[in-house]
């Protein structure tokens, strides 16, 4: 347990390694725990907006995501359609230019909904089950491939021995 003189015949490095590993932990200073608890208390008292985003209340996370998405979307939209808006002469023309992409999205969503409802009516439940099974199978194959790739790329480290790198 304790450092003792190096016994004759024993490898010095192995002996030292054993002695070092057997050294007990040093006692932490008495001031550490109160310091940590005070810091934790101060940390917990911080308003939510000064904490990491992941610690924000759910409603604040949702609102911040919506605001951020809206801002980014508006910026992208404005950059893409700035010329159209500038070219339109009347207010009605400006509105039409502004509304055109929204109308296109609405039309696409409508077409998709009609297609899906037609499919739901025409295709039997067996086919839907088969499609679901196929999706599950593809998912399982992806998981298996991912696992194999992970094992190949990140093999588990062998246990180090004292002399392995010498």
């Amino acid at each position, binding site marked *: *347990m*304790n*450092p*003792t*003189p*190096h*016994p*004759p015949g024993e490898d*010095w*490095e192995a002996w*030292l*390694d054993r*002695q*070092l*590993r057997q*050294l*007990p*932990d*040093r*006692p*932490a*200073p008495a*001031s*550490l*725990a109160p*310091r*940590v*608890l005070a*810091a*934790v208390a101060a*940390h*917990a008292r911080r308003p939510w907006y000064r904490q*990491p985003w992941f*610690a924000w209340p759910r409603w604040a996370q949702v609102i911040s995501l919506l605001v951020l998405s809206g801002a980014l979307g508006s910026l992208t939209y404005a950059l893409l359609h700035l010329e159209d808006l500038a070219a339109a002469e009347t207010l009605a023309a400006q509105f039409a230019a502004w509304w055109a992409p929204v109308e296109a999205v609405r039309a696409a969503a409508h077409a998709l909904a009609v297609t899906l409802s037609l499919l739901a009516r025409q295709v039997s439940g067996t086919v839907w089950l088969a499609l679901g099974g196929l999706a599950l199978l593809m998912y399982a194959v992806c998981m298996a491939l991912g696992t194999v790739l992970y094992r190949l790329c990140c093999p588990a480290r062998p246990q*180090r021995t004292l002399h*392995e*790198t*010498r």
Partner: protein
Amino acid sequence: MSDPVQFEAFLHHYQDLVYTTALRLVGRPAEAEDIAQEVFLKAYEHFDALAASPTAAGWLKTVARNLALNHLTRYRNRWRFFSELESEEDAEPGRAFADTLAAPETHQQTLDTADQREILEAALQALPAAQRVPLVLYHFENLSYEEIAARLKVSLGKVKTDIHRGREALRRKLQLKHPDLQSP
């Protein structure tokens, strides 16, 4: 949110482990305490997952080690830490260190066990950072030479040299305390 009472028990249970890990790497108690505080603040943020985890000790040790190494790297210029420019014939740093720690002549040769631990721990702490850190990473943190070289961003040869010098310095110090210690 985390239960404060449970966290306090957690803190008391692991504080020696975290403090020791940091102290052996940075070598200065005040800085080790700062690092330990930072580790426990991080632990508090993840306490819901850590509280009942059987790997909490390993997590704490890893975080303490990384923070200590980051701390050392941050101040490496100030301390000339791990300088590859340091010449190989830097006048036997281990010998100088052993000489400075030589026991008073009046000290009894046969020491009790607590003293023996203290000698080894003090000898380790007295090593220059360039020798102590790789030695600690190797013997206490179970890293291989290659991992130490990668983590410290120094050459493999330098890691081996520094660890060898550190061991020799420890041997000299222990031989001063125990003259019957075998010579190489």
